């Protein structure tokens, strides 16, 4: 199997996140960090057990531990899957940070310094949490507004907190310098107000992101929804906490909401992993060698993007085409409504996937599907190329036939308006002259001879012009023209024309030539006694059938007449078929699509 290498076209992914300073490439390093994170979290409970805590406290503690675990666990999965995206590492860090923050509390520690640092530490965690929400899913802040919000939250959580501690007059506050309760209270209020303002913007942003998302993209936005809920619950907590003691239930809700965010992330990642099992299905499907037409459907199912389409690269046309060879234009605009992934096989560009931009968030899936589809895509590409060439060929055949047609029409018109008219006028003059020589029988006789000679020339010219182009078809339609053809045929013709209205000229002309040539063939070769000609229009097709009762055995390959007719019919996307069994007549049938 050839390796396929997807490339990304068009939109250059902006704001690729910078990596954390530490080298986090080793899998075992990640495992170690996470085992540590998981193992240390229960210490939060241990300190309470030592303290002989109550049942209510137990629920809080269990939830507190769950928060740490959920961050570490989902962070590990994300980190291990995409080490280059620092979201995973951040989540693990937040889990460990959470545990540490909750250990810096009595009775594990009782020194005011540690307790004060713990207070600050937990607020830094809150900042980290908001940062993760803003950085989802890329792992970095890409937009100006995100950065601004992060800075505001950081200012409220760290410098203002330190400032607050400087004024807070409490025994366990190790940082107090100027004990002024009023100032401390003002700073505290400012912090909460800033947070609430930020919360409004955040919730609005998340809601907009959800509403703007295409359905496939929404599947990946579960963490955003959880984040929005968490922001709301935390805001409620911030308000209530200002005025009274927070009820336990609200605290539990907040802890549960904290857990929901990494859980949602984990779920969306596992779902993506489940999606990768669809790659296995795709492999099976491709092993059955599906028709190229089924390929797009199979890829669409594997990627779960109903809007997915394929465009095949045609090297000699330097453009893309669909399976039917029709040109496809890839939009290079980064309006975000469509994304393009280019697929190469063995270093040769083969096709482009046009898909929902959200699939970018599942790059491995996209890569896997692209790789799996490689060979099948190559086959489909060949088909698209063939179709494009066929189309080109057909178009050129149509052009040639039409150019010939136009030229014949012009010739016929010239003959009609020129030579024929002049000769008729001349014969009229001769006729008039003849009447003036009533008393000169010899001159009169000579004039009559000249006039008759001229009449024969006119007759020949008429036949010639008619052979060049049957003007009657253009002028009066197929039914009228065929009537004359049938009448002039050297054997009886039963003609049935069932047309309600005029058809496009080239269809009429093709049908006319078909009947004309067929009748000529019958007269020349078939030794027939009768011919039937049926012309009808049904199901948006012009059907022409010429049947004789002659000896049959017509050869479609050697008869250039028949070949020429087939060309004419096929140029109009029609089919010409000839049945000519020895001894049982010949049947020529043309079906020409004609909407």
């Amino acid at each position: 199997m050839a390796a396929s290498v997807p490339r990304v076209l068009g939109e250059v992914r902006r704001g690729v996140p910078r990596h954390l300073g530490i080298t986090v490439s080793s899998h075992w390093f990640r495992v170690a960090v996470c085992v540590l994170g998981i193992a240390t979290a229960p210490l939060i409970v241990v300190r309470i057990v030592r303290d002989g805590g109550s049942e209510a406290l137990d629920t809080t503690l269990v939830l507190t531990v769950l928060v740490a675990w959920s961050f570490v666990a989902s962070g590990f999965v994300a980190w291990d899957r995409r080490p280059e995206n620092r979201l995973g590492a951040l989540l693990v860090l937040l889990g460990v940070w959470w545990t540490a923050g909750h250990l810096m509390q009595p009775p594990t520690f009782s020194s005011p310094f540690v307790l004060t640092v713990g207070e600050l530490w937990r607020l830094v965690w809150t900042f980290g949490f908001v940062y993760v929400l803003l950085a989802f899913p890329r792992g970095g802040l890409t937009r100006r507004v995100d950065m601004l919000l992060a800075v505001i939250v950081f200012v409220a959580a760290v410098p203002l907190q330190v400032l607050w501690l400087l004024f807070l007059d409490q025994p366990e506050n190790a940082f107090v310098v100027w004990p002024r309760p009023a100032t401390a209270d003002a700073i505290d209020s400012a912090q909460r107000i800033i947070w609430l303002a930020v919360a409004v913007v955040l919730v609005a942003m998340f809601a907009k992101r959800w509403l703007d998302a295409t359905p496939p993209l929404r599947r990946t936005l579960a963490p955003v929804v959880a984040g929005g809920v968490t922001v709301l619950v935390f805001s409620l907590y911030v308000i209530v906490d200002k005025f009274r003691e927070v009820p336990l239930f609200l605290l539990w809700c907040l802890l549960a909401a904290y857990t929901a965010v990494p859980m949602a992330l984990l779920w969306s990642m596992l779902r993506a992993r489940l999606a990768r099992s669809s790659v296995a299905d795709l492999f099976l499907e491709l092993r059955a060698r599906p028709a190229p037409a089924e390929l797009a459907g199979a890829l669409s199912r594997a990627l779960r993007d109903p809007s997915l389409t394929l465009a095949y690269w045609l090297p000699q046309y330097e453009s893309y085409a669909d399976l039917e060879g029709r040109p496809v234009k890839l939009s290079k605009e980064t309006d975000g409504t469509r994304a393009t992934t280019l697929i190469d096989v063995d270093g040769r560009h083969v096709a482009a996937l046009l898909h929902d931009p959200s699939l970018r968030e599942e790059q491995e899936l996209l890569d896997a599907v692209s790789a799996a589809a490689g060979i099948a895509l190559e086959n489909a590409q060949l088909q698209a190329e063939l179709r494009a060439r066929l189309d080109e060929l057909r178009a050129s055949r149509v052009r040639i036939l039409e150019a010939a047609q136009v030229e014949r029409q012009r010739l016929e018109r010239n003959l009609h308006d020129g030579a024929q008219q002049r000769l008729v006028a001349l014969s009229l003059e001769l006729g008039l002259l003849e009447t003036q020589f009533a008393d000169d029988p010899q001159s009169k006789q000579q004039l009559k001879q000249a006039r008759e000679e001229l009449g024969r020339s006119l007759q020949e010219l008429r036949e010639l012009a008619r052979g060049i182009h049957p003007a009657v078809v253009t002028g009066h339609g197929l039914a009228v023209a065929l009537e004359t053809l049938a009448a002039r045929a050297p054997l009886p013709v039963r003609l049935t024309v069932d047309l309600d209205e005029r058809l496009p000229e080239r269809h009429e002309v093709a049908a006319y030539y078909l009947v004309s040539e067929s009748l000529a063939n019958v007269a020349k070769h078939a030794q027939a006694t009768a011919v039937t000609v049926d012309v009808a229009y049904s199901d948006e097709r012009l059907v022409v059938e010429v049947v004789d009762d002659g000896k049959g055995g017509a050869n479609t390959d050697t008869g250039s007449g028949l070949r020429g007719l087939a060309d004419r019919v096929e140029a109009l996307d029609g089919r010409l078929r000839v049945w000519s069994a020895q001894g049982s007549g010949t049947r020529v049938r043309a079906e020409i699509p004609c909407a």
Partner: protein
Amino acid sequence: MRVVIAEDSVLLREGLARLLAENDFDVVGTCDTPDELLLKVRSYEPEVAIVDIRLPPTHNDEGIRAAEAIREHHPSVGVLVLSQYVELGLALKLLEESAERIGYLLKDRVSDVKEFTTAVRRVGDGGSAIDPTIISQLLGRRRHDSLLDRVTPREREVLELMAEGRSNQGIAERLVVTERAVQKHITSIFEKLGLTVSCDDHRRVLAVLAFLRS
């Protein structure tokens, strides 16, 4: 007899006008477009309108359409359609309803002044003038017909001339026989073909054409 001519070739138009004027026709108008033709027919109410089948702007079927319009709106005006080709299908279309005041001739026919002027007169007088080519095409289609085989060669000549729309007198002149002889032939033909005798020229034409078409 008043005549209007619609023909877009100047040579032919002037030639026709001269030919008709020299033969005691009153050419009240000549033109080269269907619209002018209809205007002149409305204004002069001529006995005959001579119409070229290919008229501007497209030179396709304008002439035929003008002819049909005249027959519909001015039933008293005879229409003689001239064409470089005669098409059986068109003849059948023109004769669909009646063979009264209608003619359809090859342009070549203008060279035989006597024949042509007779045809114009016939159309103007309410009869018909069908080109012999059409009749021979029709007869060609009935070549293997047992009924037609019963008709003698002389009778067949009469049949053809009758189908062209000629009167008994015209047929008699053409074949250089007496009108009585012509009448005898005709009676015999109608008997052999199983048609009902009609003394009306154009009814007779229709009956013969209908027989030939069937």
